[in-house]
């Protein structure tokens, strides 16, 4: 059975008489709005805001700190109410300029900087991948699982780390292969995944945006190898091979943050989006029923995370995560 969250039909919060259509919101995404992953989710969340509230949302590709800074500044100067930075790379640049524009709220997805009008939203996708890791750890026939990352950034590493920790928690001796792609490139991901499969891995996770298509292709071409979808619905991409997806709903993040700001309740602190508050979820493929013991274990892990019994290290706790992982060896 699937559990996924969709934003409830919300009404625009009223604020000081201003018309919704006057409210301008900016979103800075690091990559292509069509990357089938991280950036695209940011762009789509923007569209949702536009549809749901009638705000004017501008989405701009801003990859480097220099562009992020000047673009955010321009938006703030032009009276944008909120400037979202989609990714932790916006954190430091926003911190430099936010004090000059106190009327604008700056929100980053990921990142560490907190100011009066700047706070990060943290999508705890790692909670979901932990659950996937439990399934992989129990089901692997070769005691060998693998993952690829689209780059060595916390947004990527925390998810794969969660996956590894989940797997080790049920199968401490299994072997984990990991590889960082030089770019989120589907061909490179395909080859890397193939390499991992040929080296014995039978459960694969790839968190690499566009690259994931390559992993799916590699899994689809191999026998007795399974994979998971990361941040999206991937069941159709390798039919019969994708056991489950983790869904991290950025829409909820954008929605919550926007609502809080427009209602004047926003606080300058990290806003966590977790399983507990319904922003992160795991969706299992009904075509591939899990063995009963596995189903029981993953459900248990899910509940334990929700209740706080299991604490999956988030992006600010990666050093601790590394130690924890090392402790299994």
């Amino acid at each position: 059975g699937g559990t996924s969250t969709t934003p409830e039909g919300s009404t625009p919060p009223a604020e000081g008489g201003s018309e919704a259509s006057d409210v301008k919101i900016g979103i800075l995404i690091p990559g292509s709005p069509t990357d089938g992953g991280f950036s695209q989710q940011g762009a789509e969340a923007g569209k949702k805001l536009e549809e749901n509230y009638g705000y004017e949302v501008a989405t701009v590709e801003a990859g480097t700190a220099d562009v992020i800074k000047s673009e955010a500044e321009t938006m703030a100067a032009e009276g944008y109410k909120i400037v979202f930075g989609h990714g932790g790379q916006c954190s430091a640049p926003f911190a430099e300029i936010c004090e000059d524009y106190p009327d604008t709220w700056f929100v980053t997805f990921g990142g560490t900087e907190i100011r009066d009008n700047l706070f990060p939203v943290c999508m705890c996708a790692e909670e979901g991948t932990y659950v996937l890791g439990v399934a992989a750890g129990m089901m692997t026939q070769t005691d060998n699982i693998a993952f690829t990352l689209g780059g060595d950034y916390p947004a990527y590493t925390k998810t794969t780390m969660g996956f590894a920790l989940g797997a080790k928690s049920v199968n401490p001796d299994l072997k984990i292969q990991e590889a960082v792609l030089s770019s989120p490139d589907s061909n490179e991901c395909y080859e890397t995944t193939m390499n991992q499969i040929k080296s014995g891995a039978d459960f694969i996770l790839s968190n690499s945006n566009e690259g994931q298509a390559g992993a799916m292709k590699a899994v689809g071409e191999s026998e007795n190898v399974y994979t998971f979808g990361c941040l999206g619905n991937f069941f159709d991409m390798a039919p019969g091979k994708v056991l489950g997806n983790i869904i991290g709903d950025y829409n909820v993040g954008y929605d919550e943050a926007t609502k809080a700001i427009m209602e004047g309740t926003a606080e300058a602190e990290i806003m966590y989006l977790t399983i507990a508050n319904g922003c992160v979820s795991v969706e299992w493929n009904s075509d591939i029923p899990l063995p009963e013991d596995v189903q029981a274990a993953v459900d248990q892990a899910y509940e334990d995370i929700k209740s706080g019994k299991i604490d999956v290290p988030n992006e600010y706790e990666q050093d601790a995560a590394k130690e924890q992982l090392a402790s299994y060896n």
Partner: protein
Amino acid sequence: MKEKLTGLLQSIWKPLVAVFFAVICSWLLLTAFGYPANEAFVSLWDATFGNLRVFGNTLNKACPLLFTGIAVAIGNRGSVFNIGAEGQFIMGCTAATWVGITFTYMPGILLMILMVLAGALAGAAWAFIPGLLKTKFSISEIITTIMFNYIALQLVGYLVRNPMRDLSQAEPQSYTIAEQGFMPYLIAKTKLHPGFLFGCIAAVVIFILLFKTYFGYEVRAVGYNSTAAKYGGINVSRTMISTMLISGALAGMGGAFEVAGSAHYLYEKISNGYGYTAIAVAILANNNPIGVILSSLLFGFLASGSTAMQRNIGVSSSFADIVQGIIIIFVAVAAVSRVKKKRTAPARPGKKPVLKEAKQ
């Protein structure tokens, strides 16, 4: 004087006409893609000249292109085709950052100077190996500099994740440089740092070096005809390597200004492909350092304009790439039509010949 002025005009009007045609092409394309082209151009204009702040922004965006553009231009003059300005820029950023986070006790001015010097040195060092491979083993610098760009990128990736990593940040980035090393903003309410100004000075210095000194004479002689230069007693290898070093140093300096003036810390994507765009910048200026000032402004204008078009109209920022490509093709074709005329018109008896060295 009058002659010089007409010469200057002559060298400017062709690129202008070419840019004009490129604008028309872009307008047609925008319309074809279904965007409101007029609005797009208005927002392009507003994003650059709308107010002082955005203008400062444009100058800042032009700054790295100015340095890397001069770097490529001087290389082209000396027939070392430096596609490695990208890597040299990145290495300049790296060295400047290292200085900025290491010598934190230094007074600001000294630290800034040291950062720029370190950037120049690192850029030169990164250009040295391709230069050496070209002169000693005649390995095409086109290949090696591209490879060195990738290597530099990975090197920075390594540094910001390991030895230089700022542990307080989740993202892989270096520590922020000492605050006194931040370059001052020149105009209040803008983030205009002195980089562009120094870039203009660098352009003038390199212009003088190229056209008013014996060293420049040698660089150009080697660039035009290295065999004749060799028999004229010029040490071709040394001249080429010097050209490469100067080129690398300029690109590295650009990196230092980017760190000290704008970014203040090092991270993987610090160069927005400046080294590659620089090739177009240099070509548009016909490899004249002074002309690079103008062409880098044009590309800075396109860069800030492209995000504005995306913000206001939703035109993909990649559209700027198309416009740049079109401009380059038009300018290149226009420039050649000029050179051709000069070559094939031999002296008419009784008339003053018009053959002059192409300086612009």
